[in-house]
């Protein structure tokens, strides 16, 4: 696999030494210069987020590592946690120092037993002297109770507080008022794991050599985690890196960014998977044997199951959408039903409180646009 996140002990120590010799502003300057963005899917510039927490009102602050990895087809964070847990811990320590927080939570989905144990071991084996130099912060390994919506940062925070995991209206943002009402930095595993690499090579080199992790699954020969520079084409990723289709059947569809992402047909194979397109880096490949009806229904059922139920358009919309699709596929209710599905899709996108409701029908929209007749 990739040794993107591997660091020699000497490199590790020198990166951390560099951080310890810098003050918070300097650390964040380096993060900003590196161009690092949120790699969990949102793509928000990491430096700006860190600065927002650093400059928030003084007092208790928190760092949260989002290891919920709930998006179907995504397993890159699991890969990092199981193989390079120290990078995650180092990234957290650097973040704690940069924002002025003394406590971090690693929110890991409970299904990742191996990853949990891997992190636990890494925490125990982390050089105590080094931990002390970082101020002996408290790092809590928190097992998420489960649910896709727990990956949404404000719902994740509610979950840690013992409340229903429901996204909160913004403003205020977690950077101002997050865990227990305090300024909180929430970053994805991959984002944090890249941080020690920034201090290893320096921001400029990092930006030059940055590689995104892609979780490739579906009807390809070699399913797995791939690292590639942003801008790699879909064709290259699927047909070169992942070994092309696993059978004689032809490529039909790629769902990029997870079920809340976009769908691309064979006409889009030269699409550059660049910033703003790759999302969290998930690519699910479907070949021509896959029923698009089943696909679309499967996705609709997923979101109806995972909807937290807080806001009306998503709570009601995801359920009705699924029911109407089922009816559509059973007895071909015709164009009026399709019109209502499209209207519902628009309203969910326009009015849902969080990303789940807003993106639940995106793949459906793309598939109906590109494959109208089949759906």
């Amino acid at each position, binding site marked *: 696999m990739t040794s993107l996140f591997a660091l020699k002990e000497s490199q590790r120590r020198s990166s951390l030494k560099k951080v310890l010799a810098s003050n918070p502003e300097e650390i964040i300057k380096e993060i900003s210069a590196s161009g690092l963005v949120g790699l969990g899917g949102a793509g928000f510039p990491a430096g700006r987020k860190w600065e927002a927490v650093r400059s928030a009102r003084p007092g208790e602050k928190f760092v949260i590592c989002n290891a919920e990895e709930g998006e179907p087809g995504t397993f890159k964070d699991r890969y990092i946690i199981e193989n390079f847990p120290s990078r995650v811990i180092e990234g957290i320590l650097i973040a704690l120092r940069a924002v002025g927080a003394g406590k971090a939570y690693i929110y890991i989905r409970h299904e990742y037993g191996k990853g949990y144990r891997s992190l636990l071991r890494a925490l125990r084996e982390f050089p105590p002297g080094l931990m002390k130099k970082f101020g002996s912060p408290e790092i809590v390994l928190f097992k998420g109770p489960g649910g896709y919506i727990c990956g949404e940062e404000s719902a994740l925070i509610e979950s840690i507080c013992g409340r229903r995991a429901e996204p909160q*209206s913004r403003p205020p943002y977690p950077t101002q008022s997050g865990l227990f009402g305090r300024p909180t930095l929430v970053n994805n595993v991959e984002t944090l794991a890249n941080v020690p690499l920034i201090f290893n090579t320096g921001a400029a080199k990092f930006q030059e050599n940055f590689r995104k992790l892609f979780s490739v699954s579906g009807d390809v020969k070699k399913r797995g985690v791939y690292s590639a520079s942003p801008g790699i084409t879909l064709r290259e990723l699927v047909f070169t890196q992942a070994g092309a289709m696993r059978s004689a059947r032809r490529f039909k569809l790629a769902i990029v960014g997870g079920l809340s992402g976009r769908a691309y047909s064979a006409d889009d194979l030269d699409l550059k998977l660049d910033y703003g397109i790759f999302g969290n880096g998930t690519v699910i490949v479907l070949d021509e044997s896959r029923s698009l009806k089943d696909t679309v229904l499967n996705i609709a059922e997923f979101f109806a199951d995972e*909807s937290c139920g807080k806001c009306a358009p998503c709570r*009601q919309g*995801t359920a009705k959408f699924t029911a109407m699709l089922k*009816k559509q596929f059973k007895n071909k209710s015709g164009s009026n039903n399709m019109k209502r599905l499209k209207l519902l899709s*628009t309203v969910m996108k*326009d009015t849902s*409180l969080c990303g789940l409701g807003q993106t639940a029908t995106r793949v459906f929209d793309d598939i109906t646009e590109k494959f109208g007749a089949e759906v």
Partner: protein
Amino acid sequence: MTINITIDNKKVTAPEGCTILQAANIAGADIPTLCHDQRVKELGVCRLCVVEVEGARNLVASCGAPATGGMKIVTDNERVRASRRVILELLLSDIGDGSAKSLSGSAMEKLLKEYGVTKSSFPRTRAKIKIDKRGPLYVHDYDKCILCRRCITTCETRIGRYVTGLTGKGNATGLATFGQAPLTGTECEFCGACIDACPTGALIENWRLKNLDCDRRAKSICTYCGTGCGIIANVKNGKITGVEGDPDHPVSHGDLCVKGRFAFDFAHHPDRLKTPMIRKRKRGKLEKATWDEAFDFIAKRLGEIKKKSGPDSIAGVSSSRCSNEDNYVMSRFMRSVVGTNNIDNCARVCHAPSVTGLAAAFGSGAATNSLEEIEGAEVIFLIGSNPQDAHPVISLKIKKAVNNGASLIIADPRKIWLTKYSTIHLPLKPGSNVALINSMLNVIIEEGLIDEQFISARTMNFDAVKQMAAGYPPAKVSRMTGVSAKDIRMAARLYASSKKSMILYGLGITEHTSGTNNVKALANLVMATGNVGRPNSGINPLRGQNNVQGACDMGALPNVFPGYQSVTDESVVSKFEERYGAKLSRSVGLKTTEYYDAIENGDLKALVIMAMDPASTDPNLNRVHAALKKLDLLVVMEIFNTRTAKMADVVFPAASFAEKEGTFTNAERRVQLFRKIIDPLQGVRPDWRIVLDLASAMGAPMPFSSPEEIWDEVARMTPQFKGINYARLEREKGLCWPCPDKSHPGSPVMYEVNFPHGLGKFNVVGNIPPKEKPDSKYPFTLVTGRRLEHYNDGSMTRRSRGLMKIRSHETVDINRDDAKMKRIKQGDRVKVISRRGEVLVRAKITDSSLPGRLFMSFHFDDALTNVLTSEGYDELSGTPEYKVTAVRLEKIKKKTSVLRSKK
């Protein structure tokens, strides 16, 4: 600070920090909402309020989104309309048959009409939910629930309780009580705030299920406590079918408690007295009689008694539940027709010390500020009062203040519910009020926290009080009160830390042998810190009954005319003599608590009681019953056959508050007009009418034909009320006296410039220990007081079916460890025994009772608590020490018949 934004192409200036919804309201744009409630934090769950904001990818929920300078907003276009329509249809799809008819009569119906939604085009996906009619009092019809969360947010935020929660997820999300318990198995206090909040009728009153429509809706003022909430009664076929809060009411704003909201059915109870009754022979039965027979009977007897023993051998008790007009004619009757100043009201047993104590300090004995100002106070010192049970709507204001950052200090021998909100709880020993308060003053003086400017400019006698306070250092007082010196200091500092510190107090201050002193001690604190004569400060006695303030204001007191004009002041008496056309007594009359001595001595022979039940509510009932039996004549005007009525020689059937008009004065001196809701029951007369008819029958008619005429005389004779008349009361929703002339707006805040006699007076107050002292034979201290669900003697609330479902009997509230020590289990029958009597009652183990202390209310017939209570009283005011009774507990081994009281 303001910002400029554009709404629907119109330029609007809005305050910085406001939401888009608030800005739109300023611009006059009408944005629909469902989950929005401006009294609680924005949830943003219905998404109906979405608007289009230039530059935003999606539509924006205007309820929570801040408006920023330069924003361009469109509140209504095709995109927005389509979204709102779809959302409404989505919600409707899981209700009933998906048609708008399922929600007829609800607030949401209006929205459906507006957006042309008659039936949802979406399929139902949520399983049908059966209506839960277990109640009591209101039902859950969750098939209509749109999960707007207004009910739970209201309950959690404003009421402070957790009754219902969310279960399940996604489209299967629902509301439920913990463990699906019925409401009586939850914290629900049945205030109905959730019912008011529900836009679809998923929460609905039992009565409304039976009577959705009505002939008319009539406003009035609640008949229960001294908060004086506005109510709106639904009337159908001449009966009250239901009650709602009045959202336009300046004090309650639509809020009510369980009694105001649900305990209205007493008015139609079959037990209502409908005919006068006379006990012709002393040991005979009460028999039906005509009004004339009853009047003649009384006129004859009173004439005889007056001739034989003089007018002062006759006394009258007026009513804190009846109107100002009822009270005034009663006191005028006693003074001008009977010829005595023996007129009193039940303020005697509750807030008389407030009248004497505050008058001694400020020159006038009433609340200094208005109830609304509680919400803006920075520090609230709640002492000897449990508003959560006795004044729930006032408790709401306290909770609101604390939610906004105010600090709450509670001094109470019980761990009352509101301690959840308090910064500090001082669990003082019952009867140690003066020591505690003087010690707080000691700290305030010692630490230089006094307001020297105020003290020197507006008060006198501070030096004497300063010297007195020096004798109450916290370390010494700690032993006397059971409160740590640290806590005394902390409470004192907290109280003195703000110029918006308000004291709220109740009967835990007044119903003691040191009642007047307790009040004076509090007044000292107020003046020492300059916390009077300004908004959101002052000292407010929380008057218990709906018109106890008014009864006192109307001069139903043995020493004063209306407006507290003294009966010993020659100029005052002559003024009234001229008005009444009769010679009036110049000697101060008897207090009700002095009646029993007088009856036993043979000095008091007749008693005329309007709407009071001393045989249930005075202390040391065995003595009271014996004394009442000794009277030559006992006349009672009542709506039910109470314990006192049962002992009477003549009983008159009176009209309830719903059947007449008049004015009530609430705890903040607000005179409020209330009008008839229903026609009087066949056979009853309003109390003022009964008194007038009696006066006529005795040959001394009084010149009134309506309550308004009665009020007008009061206003004419009393400087503080001169500016108040019915027309103004109607227009201005009540007026706080003093209101000296027709253009005066009323006085919510008193003493802003001067005290009535110029300067305020500091009073030296010593610690007067309770008369009742626990000893080895009677080791527990019993505190008596009120419970939420019932009212005073319970004659009205025990006749309300719904309320009896919530609480049907009395309990003695005992501490967990005490119960364990005495091997008492939850619900065990126990005997509570005092030096004067015993009562059989069920035990309730609760954390609100601290070790060594018990609590009982006086609302129930089956446990006549006042058989136990003490004979001790406050010297100056005569108020009994209901708050301290020494008792012991005995467990009952086997089931015995209920013993009411032991002689």
